[in-house]
């Protein structure tokens, strides 16, 4: 028995057609792969873990945006509403007042509102906040740590490689699913079922 196959000569037209089909198929697979990669990349956004944050100040300086997309947010359910707020007042403040020289925030982005003696509410004015974490350190050192930083996704441009994450000394930046883009302290998120801290 002769097992040898008979080789048919391939004409030039057929060869070009096959080549075209193969190239087209490969291109389509490639484009589909790239598109799906891009889609899955968009399913994740950058966020920082407030429990890892060491208040180094780099969030203010290293974001591609000016001012930074990282802002201070306030977990009201953790706050003590203190008159002697360590996040609002300078440690050596000469009075417990809203006078500029007593404020810790370099841009006066925290608003202090009287509630009832001796309680005050502290609200972040995001347009002024530069994400320097000075108040976060004051609040965490002396208070309950209710002030903390978060990447605000209405501002963040979701760079492929976050320039803050690259220099974060605490490795606090991570990719999180777009369905739960914030890492808010306290029960704020759970209670309100609202992923946006605004």
């Amino acid at each position: 028995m002769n097992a040898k196959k008979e080789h048919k000569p391939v004409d030039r037209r057929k060869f070009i057609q096959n080549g075209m089909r193969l190239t087209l198929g490969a291109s389509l697979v490639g484009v589909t792969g790239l598109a799906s990669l891009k889609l899955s990349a968009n399913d994740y956004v950058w966020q920082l873990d407030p429990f890892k944050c060491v208040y180094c100040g780099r969030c203010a300086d290293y974001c591609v945006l000016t001012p930074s997309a990282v802002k201070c947010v306030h977990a009201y359910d953790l706050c003590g509403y203190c008159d002697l707020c360590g996040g609002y007042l300078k440690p050596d403040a000469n009075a417990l007042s809203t006078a500029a020289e007593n404020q810790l925030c370099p841009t006066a982005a925290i608003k202090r509102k009287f509630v009832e003696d001796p309680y005050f509410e502290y609200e972040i004015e995001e347009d002024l906040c530069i994400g320097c974490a000075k108040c976060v350190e004051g609040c965490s050192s002396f208070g309950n740590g209710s002030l903390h930083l978060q990447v605000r996704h209405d501002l963040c441009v979701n760079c492929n490689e976050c320039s803050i994450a690259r220099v974060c000394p605490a490795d606090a930046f991570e990719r999180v699913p777009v369905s739960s883009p914030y890492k808010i302290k306290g029960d704020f998120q759970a209670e309100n079922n609202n992923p946006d801290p605004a």
Partner: protein
Amino acid sequence: MKFRKLVNIVLVVLALGIAIIIARDFVMNRAGKVIENPYAFDVSEYAKVSADEILYEEEKVLQLRVAEPKGIAFHQGTLFVIADSSLLQMNLQGQLLKETKLEASPTAIAVDDLVWLGMKNQVVCLNFDGQEVERWENYGDRSVITSLAVSPDFVFVADAGNRLVYQCKKNGELVRQIGEKDEQKAVPGFVVPSPYFDIALSEEGYLWAVNPGRHSLENFNAEGALRTSWTSSSVKTEGFSGCCNPAHMTIMRENAFVTSEKGIVRVKIYDQHGKYQGVVAAPNQFEEVAHAPDVCVDENGRVILLDFDRKQVRIFKPKERGNS
């Protein structure tokens, strides 16, 4: 030819420049590299304590083999430490005398002839063998018991959640609530922003309670009315700073106060009128990021600290005169 050489030189210089910029960026900005923080919250200046102000020296350290220490008390030569879900009884040499397993993690302790434990919102009493003697009704979900003080007739329960001190008979019967805001009786009310709300009894049996949100210590008479108070608010060593200090407090002989602070962690002594006397343990004797240690005293005037971060019982004795 000359032009090509010039172009080559320019290209090499450019390449070198780019390489230097990349290398500099890599070295200066890499993660973990310590660089100056222009927004630093710097309280290091206030953490410095002059050597003249330090009145005590560390005598002994007892290492605890526990995950999470919670509180400490001293009674007749024995240390009582609550940690994890256990009550440890140990002598001052660090020898474990007895360990009692508890059904939950306690939050406060006081000792007389019995061991009184705060279990978040409930008071439980054990004898020294670890057997349960009393279990009171709980004070509700909002309650967070942070401190207990016991006199011959009463148990005082500090509830940070409800911002009250309960004066109870030893069977749990509530005699009165102390510290409720009452403008007519000039009681300002306790301001307790976080679960740091300590109480102690003076030598005469009067209640002293920390009002942490006001940097005050308040004294109440037998009827629960405000008797006196003192306040010391300053970031400097002689005062209390932040939102809730002193975090812990105890009373030693001659009704002097031993206070422990968070934020700038330090342990200090004030006389019976609230006048600053000096420092037991300075900030540099604790971890860089530390919790305020719980405090108690022995009959010889030694100050005993429960260091939550190092998981140690640290015993400080008064410095001898002339021994700086």
